[in-house]
């Protein structure tokens, strides 16, 4: 297994990844709470970005409603925990099934009825909005007044119930991100990965090569939705409160896809680089403005928007593809061309 995983990957990249992983594993011992919070945020966006990238970057299906799957995962695990005391890890399979079914439903409607491109994107927004309004009136999880998880001072970390310190959440998110990376890596080099990319590039040509494009697009949506719902569990237990207005808001869906687009869509490292750059950018703008003493609401986001604009204009393919070329990796099996 390990052998197949590393096959064809240049040695210096493996070493670099190993070093990076070691640094990340040691981080909680040296980082203060603030840095840890930022790292958690980076990992969170790296994870969700990878999950979204499977659908858009690999299979070419643009979803602008991924907050739906985050929200379904969050609400399912949180409700099972609060109402029945079910561990989030046991609630997770339920959440995954629900999110997968939601994804399958949207995918089925769209792909059977030939809804594509921008139209497909808007359909995904529509279903996310349905969920937002539906959950607003969903009494069992307190509707629009918000659903809260009990918070107490924990003397020790309870991994089984995901109650504990930032360091514990950090390791959970790190593990999820690494697993997601391995899954993406494996998928992209597998039969299914080739078929997805063929569909992304030219669906008609893919069909004439015998690919059941409906089936593979469905698989992409279901995998992407399932993985995204896992991030929902993390979101619920890390932040301890859920408001439909926030969880399912379109800006959640958008912030989740900025990373992979900025980092390099369809690439393995793009979502991770994108998460680092964007989160780092947001935090440094905040620090800078605080230092300058100019902090009206919105100032941070304006600078963020300007930086985003500059990156989009200067790096059409995102950050990773030109970076990979600089590092001499463009012949690696990482599909960087778009």
């Amino acid at each position: 297994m390990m052998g197949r995983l590393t096959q064809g990957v240049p040695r210096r990249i493996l070493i670099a990844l190993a070093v990076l992983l070691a640094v990340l594993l040691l981080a909680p011992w040296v980082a203060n709470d603030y840095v840890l919070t930022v790292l958690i945020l980076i990992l969170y966006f790296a994870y969700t970005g990878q999950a979204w990238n499977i659908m858009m970057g690999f299979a070419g299906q643009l979803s602008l409603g991924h907050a739906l799957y985050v929200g379904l995962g969050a609400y399912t695990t949180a409700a099972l925990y609060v109402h029945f005391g079910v561990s989030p890890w046991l609630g997770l399979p339920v959440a995954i099934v629900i999110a997968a079914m939601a994804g399958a439903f949207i995918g089925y409607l769209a792909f059977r009825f030939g809804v594509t491109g921008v139209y497909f994107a808007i359909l995904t927004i529509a279903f996310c909005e349905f969920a937002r309004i539906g959950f607003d009136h969903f009494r069992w999880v307190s509707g629009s007044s918000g659903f809260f998880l009990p918070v107490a001072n924990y003397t020790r970390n309870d991994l089984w119930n995901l109650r504990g310190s930032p360091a514990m959440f950090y390791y959970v998110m790190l593990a999820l991100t690494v697993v997601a990376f391995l899954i993406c890596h494996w998928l992209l080099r597998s039969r299914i990965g080739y078929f997805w990319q063929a569909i992304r590039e030219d669906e008609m040509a893919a069909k004439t090569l015998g690919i059941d494009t409906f089936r593979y697009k469905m698989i992409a949506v279901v995998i992407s939705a399932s993985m995204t719902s896992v991030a929902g569990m993390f979101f619920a237990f890390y932040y301890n409160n859920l408001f439909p207005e926030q969880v399912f808001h379109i800006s959640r869906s958008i912030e989740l896809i900025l990373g992979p687009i900025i980092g390099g869509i369809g690439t393995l490292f793009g979502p991770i680089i994108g998460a680092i750059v964007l989160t780092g950018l947001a935090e440094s703008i905040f620090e800078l403005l605080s230092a300058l003493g100019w902090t009206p609401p919105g100032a941070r986001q304006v600078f963020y928007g300007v930086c985003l604009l500059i990156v989009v204009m200067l790096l059409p393919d995102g950050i990773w593809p030109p970076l990979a070329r600089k590092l001499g990796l463009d012949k690696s099996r990482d599909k960087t061309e778009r």
Partner: protein
Amino acid sequence: MPAEIYLNVAISGLLTGLVYGLMALGLSVIFGVVRVVNFAHGEMMTIAMYLAVALFASFKLDPLLMLLPIAGVLFLLGYAMQNWLITPFINRPEHAQFMLLIAVAIIMVNGLLIVFGPDAQNVQTSYSFDSFAIGPLIIDATKVYAGLAAIVVAAALFAFFKFSLTGKAIRACADNYTGALVVGLDVRRLYALTFGLGAACVGAAGAILVLIIDVTPPLGPAFTLLAFIIVIVGGLGSMPGALLGGVLIGVTEALAGLLFTPSAKSMFAFAILVLVLLFRPEGIMGKRAS
């Protein structure tokens, strides 16, 4: 509930829907010609709304009188955006264009937040509380003026595309890009002009809408979504379709707000959207896509 109430609400929804339609018309014109989805459309409308609020607060200028100047400002904004920002993205994939306009939208929303703050603002004209009584019906004067103004602006735009030479040239660009280049049309300028016109539409709609709705910065994304829904329901690229879609959505939202809870309003708009996407993807007035 007596029937008049439904009729009252429906007419009020229809008049508001005309303004929605004008807003969506801007999006439709831009997409129909430039083939770029303006993800900052609602944000541009909130800019126009704040312009109207500021002009009214400072100089007591009625938004309806300021409709043309505000549309003019938005025209310049749209022209500049297309000319300098979007032109290099014309042939880029959809997600790149999306990214660009999302960045623009973020800057707009938060720029407004810095300048005007988060509180809702509105315009109270001398006729704010006037109404017309027609038989058992009581209709807000403001909404009547708003609906009429929207129709006048839309009619002017129709006339421009139908009769003016520039309007015809823009339509030629939309129908056949290569052909337009071959016969020597300055496509870049026509695109900028089109984006400017679309922005002017949404600017006029904003100036009108401020009479009916309080404005806050986060209204932008919500109106972007609403404009999408209307345009898709009406038929992308169809100008009458945008107006019709606006009216349909306006009436639906008004009735849904009356029959169910107001917070469920947008659910019905989205439900219509989903039905149209599945069963008539070209929209009510649209032509079958090739």
